[in-house]
């Protein structure tokens, strides 16, 4: 469609197109931009509508020096990072097995992987909370990591199957001809080829853990144990609203995610919808 030249589009239609897209873009960008601007305003001006008056880094200074932001950030990096690595590690061989072999138990497994992805956290949160309580893992990053694996593992396995499906089976066959067993084929031939897929899967697992709110709010208490999702809530509560610190924290949380995102987003959609559209 894009290759067709449509010189015939009426000027009015063209204006309409641009106006609509411009309007939509403003709605999409404005909230983010407004938070960025607010973060640069002195705390006492946070709620004014001036675009930028007396821009300052005061909010950032406050955030880094007088709040627990850095420990929240470290907690989030730790929890999301370990979840990602473990999730990808545990799920990789399964993604490969369900992509390549037909074996008894495969259908129930695929079905389980699909169902668990639509599990509401509501069904697991209480038992997991009690379990973590019994094990003394509440308020510990480890407890949250184990909990997040319930989300990451089925998801990673499912998504990686999609990526392995895109690698031609002939490569496996040539590996077998060269005398490699399935593990060898997987490890030496397929895994290196699937690196971009692993990266995207890992990225998505990371982002999911980075942005998780429910478990993080329930399992982590006490200022310095919080992750970012919990920490940000402390700036704006029923009683206090420190919008300046909130906006500065938002910017610092969003920037790394957004940078990664811009690189990965094309593959993200492909991976997510591949599973269901490639019949």
């Amino acid at each position, binding site marked *: *469609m894009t290759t067709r030249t449509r010189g015939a589009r009426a000027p009015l239609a063209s204006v309409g197109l641009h106006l609509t897209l411009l309007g939509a873009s403003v709605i999409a960008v404005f909230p983010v931009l407004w938070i960025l601007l607010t973060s640069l305003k002195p705390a006492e001006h946070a709620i004014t509508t001036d675009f930028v008056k007396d821009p300052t880094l005061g909010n950032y200074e406050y955030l880094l020096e007088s709040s627990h932001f850095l420990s929240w950030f470290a907690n989030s990096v730790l929890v999301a990072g370990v979840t990602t690595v473990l999730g990808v590690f545990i799920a990789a061989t399964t993604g490969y097995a369900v992509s390549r072999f037909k074996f008894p138990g*495969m259908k129930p497994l695929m079905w389980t992987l699909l169902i668990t992805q639509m599990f509401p956290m509501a*069904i697991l949160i209480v*038992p997991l*909370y009690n379990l973590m309580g019994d094990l003394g893992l509440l308020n510990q990053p480890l407890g949250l990591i184990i909990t997040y694996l319930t989300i990451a593992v089925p998801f990673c396995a499912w998504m990686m199957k999609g990526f392995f499906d895109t690698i031609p089976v002939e490569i496996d066959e040539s590996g077998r001809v060269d005398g490699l067993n399935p593990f060898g084929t997987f490890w030496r031939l397929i895994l290196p080829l699937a690196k971009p897929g692993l990266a995207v899967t890992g990225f998505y697992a990371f982002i999911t853990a980075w942005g998780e709110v*429910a478990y993080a709010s329930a399992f982590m208490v006490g200022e310095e144990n919080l992750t970012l999702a919990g920490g940000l809530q402390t700036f704006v509560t029923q009683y206090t609203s420190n919008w300046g610190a909130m906006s500065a924290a938002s910017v610092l949380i969003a920037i790394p995610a957004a940078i990664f995102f811009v690189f990965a987003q094309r593959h993200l959609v492909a991976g997510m919808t591949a599973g*269901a559209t490639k019949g």
Partner: protein
Amino acid sequence: MAAHTSQSVAKAAGDGVENDAAARGRSRRTDSGNTRGLRRALATHWYAWAMIAPVVLVLGVIIGWPLVRGVYLSLTDANERNVARTIGARHIDATYEFVGLDNYTAVLGDPVFLQRLVWTVMWTVACVSITFTLGLVLANMLNRDFRGRAAYRMALILPWAVPGFVSVFAWRFLFNRDNGILNKILDGGGIAAIPWLDDPTWAKFSVVAVNVWLGVPFMMVALLGGLQSIPGELYEAAEMDGASAWQRFRHITLPGLRAVSMTVILLSTIWTFNMFPVIFLLTRGGPGDSTEILVTQAFREAFVSSPRDFAGSATWGVLILALLMIFALVYRRSLRKQGEVW
């Protein structure tokens, strides 16, 4: 791939049962025959089984076991006072008791459940339909060839690049009654401030608006991918035959997007139904309980209300899961009736 899994569970489970029964039957007759069969199966499939073992183990331990326990808790009267806990060095054993289906009759008999269910369904339908429509419109626009396309595309996916909870806080700031920019803009136009988050109806409007804002980019990118996979020749041929733009959209674009649409609608329905952060962080289910959906209600039972009602929360959880499974089955059946492979 989904074609494989779409063979119904009942059938898959049924196969398993039959195999087991057959195996047991055989083992009673000839033990050696059975072991030989097992050995052969092991020899053929052990690679596959070894490869899936880590996931099966993890799923069993951290999903299967808590799931079973969750269902069990929903049949007890567990709350924060009677579960096992450790205070200092003292360990107190659990004293909660099995109460059968009492929790279910209590929840289902309470008008609150119906209220939550109705609002959850309204919320899901509103969010998904608006998100899908906007996504479709924007994707169609971006699929044309014009100057500035890349810039618009970049701008429009921005909401997706920001972690959800950050965006929700941003919106809370914009929606703020006295100091939020939205009301200041309205004020500039001489319009009285709108209690975005403090009035039940406006709060409902606001949570839907934010969720749509969050969801449109994914929808748009997915549908744009779908559009780009429709061969351009189809449009050329239709244009030759004198089809209008609307006819081309109806008879080429929509059918061409079918597979992608079905997938993203299913995904976003499930996501929206379970969308915890938007409601929890924007309104906390309030004002009052007007925006509380089923998932936030389950959370409230166990972690907000006092005393914390673990059994009640588990009951809500089981009910939500049951609703979603029914939905998924009905959705798939209706697709199959229309001859869709999925």
